[in-house]
């Protein structure tokens, strides 16, 4: 295998990767601004320059290459020696840092990027500490470039990542470079706005505080945020995300790099779709129907009523139906179906179906014209539920046959008397057909937001969104991905997993007296593998990469 020595560390490589890529793969840091793994190479920021010694092809002796080479663009050569810590390379790093800062406003105290800014980090690591620039700075305007993004041109370092993103990823090319020299700036193409379905990503790839997320602007200092790795809970894409929260409140959602799923990006729908989690409409109290009117109750009373109703139904030989929402995780679907089957007893099988799977338009792949299998392609899924496939997989594993799809299930429940439903959709999901089909039936509903059924349910339990629990989603490509709980469920609610774990424990308690265990997704996966033979749940589930959970940097010090 070919070898290259970077800053004294021998690194192996195959093919012709750039020096920077090999360095990063080997855990070596080379500062870079304009280079981004998902974008074309422009080699324009010039901070990644290195001094290179290449072996003479005839004598094999190392000879210095007289000029500094951009590591992001220069392919590795066998036997080369690269130094980014030589006096020449360091002098260049210092010069570039000084150049980048001469027209930068240095307004870190009021900048959203502070704390995760490459200008700050590299200044600290590679800069010169003080500026020799005594002239007047160039003042650039702040611009409102689109529904989600502000552009503070004065902080921009012209790395052109955002311009390349709109050209190479979205294919919309709203952004361009105007002007020349140091008065150059990023601007909108005349007559356009940065209004595409991936526009939020430009704020992520901006290495400085020039492109800012309007939604996050001035809401939180980034060092206060805890970053929990999660999976997109709104669409079937299974995008890897990082939920960034502080004290039980989500402040923003960012993409996590996963080359086999979402590459480096997420859609704006996923980025901003979490707002309903903190909606003041959230259901936070179990309720039950009493003399035709819903009244508040507590979980154990609600459980009692559910158990009593089901026992009565079983006595009477009435049919029970259950609808498993595709918004639930695989583990929850398993616990729910297991509990419903147990509650119905051996004689009468419940009618279990998969909840409605919302679809909006068609799948769209970026850049336009790319195939979803392309290395850099990014697909927005039309299917707006994270786990329809996972729910089907679990129900099939449990029943041995395919579960009813929603339309079939609606027909099948005509003579059912007790119906258990789960919702958890971010918006209204109860169709007229469903509401009609459920009239004069006993309804148990677990949901997160009010809808047509929440007022009519005999028992209503407040559920929790995916950010408030752990579990596994199966995306549109059949990839099983586990996610962790980011924030606790809103006060008064419980995750569906916990609710069914409670109900299952109550059934078991009547025989052996154990209390309710804490819902543990990993344990449920093991149980699924053991009891149903769904070995994929211990074999194929992808866990977030190590290091993707990041605690807040903030340390509280007692004074």
């Amino acid at each position: 295998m070919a070898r290259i020595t970077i800053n004294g560390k021998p690194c192996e490589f195959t093919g012709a990767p750039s020096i920077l890529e090999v360095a990063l793969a080997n855990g070596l840091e080379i500062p870079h601004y304009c280079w981004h793994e998902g974008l074309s190479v422009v080699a324009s920021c010039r901070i990644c320059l290195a001094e290179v010694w290449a072996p003479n092809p005839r004598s094999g002796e190392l000879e210095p290459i007289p000029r500094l080479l951009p590591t992001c663009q220069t392919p590795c050569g066998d036997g080369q020696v690269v130094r980014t810590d030589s006096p020449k390379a360091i002098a260049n790093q210092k010069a570039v840092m000084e150049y980048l800062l001469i027209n930068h406003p240095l307004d870190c105290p009021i900048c959203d990027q502070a704390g995760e800014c490459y200008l700050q980090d590299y200044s600290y690591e590679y800069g010169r500490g003080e500026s020799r620039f005594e002239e007047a700075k160039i003042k650039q305007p702040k611009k409102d470039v689109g529904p989600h993004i502000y552009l503070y041109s004065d902080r921009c370092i012209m790395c052109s990542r955002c311009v390349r993103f709109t050209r190479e990823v979205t294919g919309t090319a709203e952004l361009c470079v105007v002007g020349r020299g140091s008065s150059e700036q990023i601007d909108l193409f005349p007559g356009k706005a940065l209004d595409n379905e991936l526009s939020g990503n430009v704020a992520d790839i901006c290495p400085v505080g020039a492109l800012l997320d309007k939604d996050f602007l001035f809401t939180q200092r980034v060092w206060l945020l805890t970053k929990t790795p999660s999976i997109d809970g709104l669409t079937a894409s299974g995008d890897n995300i990082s939920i960034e929260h502080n004290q039980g409140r989500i402040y923003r959602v960012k993409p996590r790099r996963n080359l086999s799923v979402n590459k480096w990006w997420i859609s704006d729908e996923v980025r901003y779709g979490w707002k309903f989690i903190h909606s003041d409409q959230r259901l936070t109290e179990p309720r039950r129907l009493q003399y035709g009117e819903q009244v508040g109750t507590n979980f154990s009373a609600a459980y009692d009523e559910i158990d009593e109703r089901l026992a009565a139904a079983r006595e009477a030989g009435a049919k029970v139906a259950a609808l498993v929402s595709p918004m639930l995780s695989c583990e929850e679907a398993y616990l729910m179906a297991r509990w419903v089957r147990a509650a119905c007893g051996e004689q009468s099988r419940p009618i279990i179906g998969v909840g409605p799977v919302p679809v909006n338009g068609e799948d769209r792949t970026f850049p336009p014209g790319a195939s979803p299998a392309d290395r850099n392609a990014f697909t927005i899924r039309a299917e707006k539920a994270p786990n329809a496939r996972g729910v089907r997989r679990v129900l099939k594993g449990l029943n041995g046959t395919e579960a009813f799809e929603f339309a079939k299930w609606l027909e099948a429940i005509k003579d059912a008397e007790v119906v258990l439903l789960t919702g958890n959709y971010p918006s209204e999901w109860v169709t007229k057909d469903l509401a009609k089909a459920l009239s004069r039936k006993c309804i148990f509903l677990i949901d997160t937001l009010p809808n047509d059924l929440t007022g009519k349910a005999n028992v209503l339990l407040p559920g929790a969104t995916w950010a408030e629990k752990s579990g596994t989603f199966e995306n549109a490509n059949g990839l099983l991905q586990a996610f962790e709980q980011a924030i606790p469920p809103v006060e008064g609610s419980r995750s569906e997993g916990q609710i069914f774990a409670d109900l299952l424990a109550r059934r078991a308690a009547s025989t052996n007296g154990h209390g309710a265990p804490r819902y543990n997704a990993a344990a449920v996966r093991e149980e699924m593998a053991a009891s149903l033979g769904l070995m994929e749940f211990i074999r194929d589930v992808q866990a977030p990469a190590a290091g993707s959970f990041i605690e807040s940097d903030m340390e509280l010090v007692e004074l």
Partner: protein
Amino acid sequence: MPMTGPVLTRRIPTFPYGNPRDRRTVWYDDYVKSGGYEALRRSIALEPAAVVDMVKDSSLRGRGGAGFPCGLKWTFLPKNYEGQRYLAVNADESEPGTFKDRLILDYDPHMLLEGIAISCFACRIQTAYIYIRGEYHHQARILERAIAEAYGQGIFGGRGILNGACDFKVDCYLHRGAGAYICGEETGLLESLEGKRGWPRIKPPFPAVKGLFGKPTIINNVETLCCVPFIIEHGVEWFKSLGCASKIGGPPSFGTKLMGVSGHVQRPGVYECDLGIPLRRLVEEYCGGMRGGKRYKAAIAGGVSMGVLGTDQFDAEMDFDIGRKYEVLGLGTACPTIFDEDTDMVMVARNIARFFKNESCGQCTPCREGSGWMYKLLCRMERGEAKLKDIDLLLELAGSMGAMPGTTICGLADGNNWAVRTIVNKFRSEFEARCSPSFVPVTVGVA
């Protein structure tokens, strides 16, 4: 053997062989009457490779500034490649003080078109684009008319070169720039031709392999291509009898060169001379001496990006060795700007820095930010508000940018770097006179 008569200016009356007042545009008929397109006829009777070999043997060096051997550049095209190739003709003459190509475009456009046709034939290039500077409105109109004439006469298009005398067909188009200096940089020119922002490309891949629209492309200066017909017509030995060999063992500087002299001379203008003519002779014999009898002080060697020749370098020979011999970047376009003894060199430096600040494309950090900083620093120096230490800062900034130290993609910053650095180094006392001393605060510890 020095030149005995005009070569490139054969149809353009130029001192001392003719009176510039007699200049008029030579259109197709007059061009053919005076022996035009004869070299093209001769070329197509040869094998294309033989034409390339002749140009290679003549040691013709690029006239656009870098002096790269033209024939060698042609051989970089991929062999046995049947697809589309392009010739990009660099007529984006926007270096301050340079106006030699304009003379050709103004008065003898067919000389360029003949050079294009021969070069395309030799390199098997089907399509040529002439990228002309946006400000050359008049020249663009002349070229358009000349190209239309050439199409009408079967030089281009149709059944093949010279009305099908050869079955190789060449198309030629004119593309007008929008007024950016950087589009004269070869890859910036290609980007601009493709309709993009004129940001120079990172190399490799080199244009000869992957150039315009991703196809192998040759980029040549107007004057370089104009030399080609003469090499075909008069032979390699004749061409090598003009100009001079290198006196320091480098590659030779054969041929004649259009030299556009501007600045403080009696008769500024374009003159054709042998390469290697001393600057003093160019000024005194061709330009009628310094204006107003003043003394020579400095000269920009060939376009502002090459840096300046000092007061003691008036005898510098204008050939491609000038860079190594006289501490300038190179011969450049061989269009010197002459300064007399009254010139304020700080102002010259500031003016040049202003040009580069305005024309930096803004792609690479050092050039984008450094050019603006240098300009501001020089403005302060010119106003007399700078400190002595600022001179060193200025030199450090200049030295930190350029394609030669590797910190930028293209050579624009090198031009800025060399211009400022050579002026400061050769006229440092003038800068020091403008600056106040920098005091270093010293505290004495008292026990």
